[in-house]
């Protein structure tokens, strides 16, 4: 990609002292005996409303929060539940009863035919407190097994950038690629596109956003990239 790419801020490394005005947000910014410290790599930049400086993390390990909608990957099958990789240190659990919406009957229901290892699901985190596995539910609008489209994975830290301020980046992506895009909190993105070419362009655009998050003029570059690719591929 051509064009001037300037990082919108100064790079902060773990252990670096931050100005007092930066809000503590453990574990990324900690109050270490009265000193504000960054614990992960991030950016220190001017707040958009001009209200001093803010710390933006560039690294994040996804910790589930009740209420988060996540995209999970079935990684194992138990007697009455599935073990789900949710791109987090913790493996989540989805019960067969929740998936079926009724009690599980082992004489009739076969776990393997309901969800297979490698299936993607859209689910909501019901409960999690670090002492036991996160619990998922697929009971709700738009939740359940993902049956079409594509799932791409990015760093959870870059999720806010893919969505953009007031969803601006997401709207731009959807408009320009004609895809339906769902960004889950855990860094997985579900795309439903009219054809393979548009899907490939959307995936590439998302990867560029991940790579170049928080550089100046990113939205403009993304629009230019998508239009250019569509012209070349004639879609």
């Amino acid at each position, binding site marked *: 990609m051509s064009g001037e790419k300037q990082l919108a801020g100064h790079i902060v490394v773990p252990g*670096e002292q931050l100005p007092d005005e930066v809000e503590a947000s453990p574990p990324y910014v900690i109050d270490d005996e009265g000193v504000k410290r960054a614990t992960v*790599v991030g950016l220190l930049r001017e707040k958009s409303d001009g209200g001093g400086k803010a710390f933006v993390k560039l690294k994040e*390990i996804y910790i589930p929060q009740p209420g988060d909608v996540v995209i999970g990957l079935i990684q194992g099958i138990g007697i009455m539940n599935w073990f789900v990789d949710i791109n987090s240190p913790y493996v989540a659990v989805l019960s067969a009863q929740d998936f079926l919406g009724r009690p599980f009957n082992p004489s009739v229901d076969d776990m393997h035919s309901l969800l297979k290892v490698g299936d993607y699901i859209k689910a909501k985190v019901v409960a999690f407190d670090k002492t036991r596995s996160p619990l998922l539910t697929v009971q709700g609008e738009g939740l359940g097994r993902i049956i079409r489209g594509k799932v791409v994975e990015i760093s959870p830290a870059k999720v806010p950038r893919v969505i953009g301020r007031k969803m601006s980046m997401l709207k731009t992506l959807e408009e320009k690629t004609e895809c339906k895009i769902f960004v889950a909190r855990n860094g997985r993105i579900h795309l439903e596109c009219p054809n393979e070419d548009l899907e490939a362009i959307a995936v590439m655009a998302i990867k560029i956003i991940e790579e170049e998050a928080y550089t100046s003029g990113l939205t403009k570059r993304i629009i230019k990239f998508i239009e250019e690719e569509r012209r070349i591929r004639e879609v």
Partner: protein
Amino acid sequence: MAGPVPEGVELLRDGRRHDGRLPEDLRPIRMQVGILNNADGSALVEFGRTRVLAAVYGPREPHQRFYILPDRAALRVRYHMAPFSTDERKSPAPSRREIELSKVVREALEPVVLAEEFPRTVIDVFLEVLQADGGTRTAAVTAASLALADAGIPMRALVGGVAVGKIQGVLVVDVDELEDMYGEADMPVAAAPDIGEITLLQLNGVLTREEFRTALSMALRAIDRVVEFEKEAIRRTYLEVGGGQE
């Protein structure tokens, strides 16, 4: 500490060491962050001819349940020397020395890693010495610190390490293999300058109290520079791509 110095080797001459360095000089340092695609975090650190590769995986749920700690993540560190890292082929089986150094390096990192954020998980740090020329344990701590930062694991500060030795009564910083073998003392130190904590301190050989104090302050000064290099290496990674890679 291996008897007399062999013929033709001068450890000190006109105040300069056998490779031309002054007593307080570090060897040329090179650091690269994020060089392995399959690890969550990685780094390559070189102090002169000493080269150490670090790879970090996690936090993740361990396969063996007995590793689980209920209140924090368990840090597992493996320091290992590649068979081709030394003059004579080194057996790839973990030696007594490597088992000890794995523990020492782990304890050098534990004070800075915010392990309590990820209870019931493990964080794996693999350290592979690719080429050994003295100071491998301190280079390993340095590489591990960078790889942990690259993996996005929250840390109170970056840790750096360096060894101070004594040759012919003169204290020297960042000893290499030759100086370590024929010197009178070797003192590896690791510290986190940002929070003013020493996380590793070992000594073999003999130092007077006064020499020890001087050696420690020399080591801490050198570590300040090592950690500055670490910060540069991280910043460089991000400026190159304007976003960094995971």
